[in-house]
């Protein structure tokens, strides 16, 4: 017997959570795009899409967020910190790859210096993921030792019922259990079977790739130029990636008052590493693509013991020139044989 949440109870759940002081967030389709957004009622939820177009990252690390407000007087500077708006919230209907992405970035935002913009939000958020029963040709979680029903990063995992009328509930963390107490009455004990999880074929051997990447000789391989020749450096892969975390700090305002903001940035951009002197350590697009792959599958795992990729496939799905991690790692897999 497992706990089951029926779809028709979802509206009540949203209500309950809201009265328990949680704001409810989930995949919402608006203006031709699906993203994790505040949910008014269960009807707002778009759960049929393979995964939302935009990743979950922006709920924890938005494209732009104020860090502090400043005002400059004749003999004084006032700084007013802007910590992220705190308030408990629940994300209903995250995809396991998105949830894993958050877990992957936790160590980065926490090593030595704790980034409060990230962790304040992390600590206040319950993540209820739904296992995938559908996938497309871009999904690659299995290649990264994750799966369509991975529990990594989730507080609760829901498995869709075969009937399509609800989900099996698997509470994973205390935070998840706590959140589900509020809707305990709406859950049913039952033995209804779960739908089979999506089949995601393994596309490359991530370990072999990491090994190949670790070999210093391959840093200068011709491969990098060949694979990235069509890359236009648009950076949308990095902006859609649930694990890419690079950012910029920018001041905006009029002359004496303004806001210091933390904005997304991308290693695909030519100016990302440009020194003021004009020297650019990564001056070519191939060097930048190499950095991206190296970082995700060599440097990052070396430091934080996991690949910086959860296999959502958005990078390839959206790429205007049909490039992406899958193709590159497939090619590396071939090279490493």
């Amino acid at each position, binding site marked *: 017997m497992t706990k089951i949440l029926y779809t028709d109870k979802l509206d009540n759940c949203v209500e309950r959570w809201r009265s328990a002081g949680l704001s409810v967030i989930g995949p919402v389709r608006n*203006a*031709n*795009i699906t*993203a994790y957004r505040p949910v008014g009622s269960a009807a707002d939820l778009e759960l049929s899409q393979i995964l939302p*177009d*935009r990743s979950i990252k922006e709920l924890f690390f938005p*494209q*732009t967020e104020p860090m502090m407000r400043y005002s400059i007087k004749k003999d004084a500077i006032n700084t007013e910190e802007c910590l992220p708006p705190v308030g408990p919230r629940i994300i209903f209907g995250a995809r396991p790859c998105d949830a894993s992405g958050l877990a992957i970035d936790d160590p980065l935002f926490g090593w030595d210096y704790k980034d409060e913009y990230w962790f304040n939000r992390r600590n206040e958020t319950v993540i209820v993921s739904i296992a995938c029963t559908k996938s497309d*040709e*871009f999904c690659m979680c299995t290649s990264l030792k994750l799966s369509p029903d991975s529990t990594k990063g989730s507080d609760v995992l829901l498995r869709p019922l075969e009937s399509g009328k609800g989900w099996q509930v698997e509470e994973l963390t205390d935070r998840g259990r706590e959140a589900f107490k509020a809707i305990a009455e709406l859950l049913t004990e039952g033995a209804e079977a779960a739908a089979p999880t999506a089949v995601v074929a393994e596309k490359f051997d991530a370990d072999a790739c990491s090994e190949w990447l670790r070999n210093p000789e391959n840093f200068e391989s011709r491969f990098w130029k060949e694979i990235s*020749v*069509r890359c*236009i*450096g*648009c*950076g*949308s892969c*990095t*902006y*859609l990636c649930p694990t890419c975390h690079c950012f*910029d700090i*920018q001041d*905006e305002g009029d002359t004496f008052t303004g806001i210091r*903001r933390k*904005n*997304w940035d*991308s290693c695909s*951009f030519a*100016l990302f590493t440009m020194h003021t002197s004009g020297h650019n350590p990564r001056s070519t697009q191939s060097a930048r693509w190499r950095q991206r792959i190296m970082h995700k599958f060599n440097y990052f795992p070396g430091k934080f013991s996991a690949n910086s990729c959860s296999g959502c496939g958005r990078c*390839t799905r*959206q790429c*205007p*020139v*049909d*490039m*992406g991690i*899958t*193709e590159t790692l497939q090619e590396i897999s071939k090279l490493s044989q």
Partner: protein
Amino acid sequence: MSIEQQYRTRAKELLSSGEVKMVIGYSKGSTPDRRRPAFISTPEDVETLVLDGACIANLSGYLVTEGLLSDEKRVAVFLRPEGIRAINILAAEFQLNAAQVEILGFNTEGNEPTALSGSKVDDFAELIGTLKGIIPDTAGEELYKKLEAMSPQERFDFWQSEFSKCIKCYACRQACPMCYCRRCIVDNNQPQWVNTSSHTLGNFEWNIVRAFHLSGRCVECGNCDRACPVNIPLRLINRKMAGEVLEAFDHFAGSSQTQEPVMASFKKDDTETFIL
């Protein structure tokens, strides 16, 4: 012989004879309905070239990749009419020498590509002339008409809602063949005219600056539209600008490689009363 085979043969000839050093075309993509840019420099590799209805990306932007044409060798490129117009603009704006570009022209009616006759950009002048004022395809046409019918306030609201999705990745710029500046205005931080943050103001600043920079230059290839990771119908802004420029100045972007930029050229019968 299919057009695909015909152009493969042509590409092979061009490469074998040394007439061109590279052919920029399309090859199979990661899914059956996708095509990706391909850069072929040996005759053997021409077999990977694909030409069908899924080949829609405008490849002209690759020609201005730094250093590609600086050796004065020639490059062949697969182009639809919009792409050919883009070559005209790039030549008119001195970004490339059109003589270095061998055009493998094609158009797509329905789902089947047809070959366009000609190989130099000027060979297509007549074709381009016939395109003037004609809305190229139906992509977004319905929405465009809807927008035209809107009141200014409604239209503003529509774009505000669309721009609110913008994540300031500048993928539209990177995908655009006309955005060749070494340093984009938004990358100039002294002063920082355009905010890098994706808030309402910053998003408007960026998208409107881009629309102005493309007025009279956009060939409506749709590269920006397709590149946008958040599905903003960017093409419609540029189509609007193109329509305005056509009406006000009878300027059809990319008509010839000597066409002067509409916003920077004076005609002899222009009055100059605005200059003191």
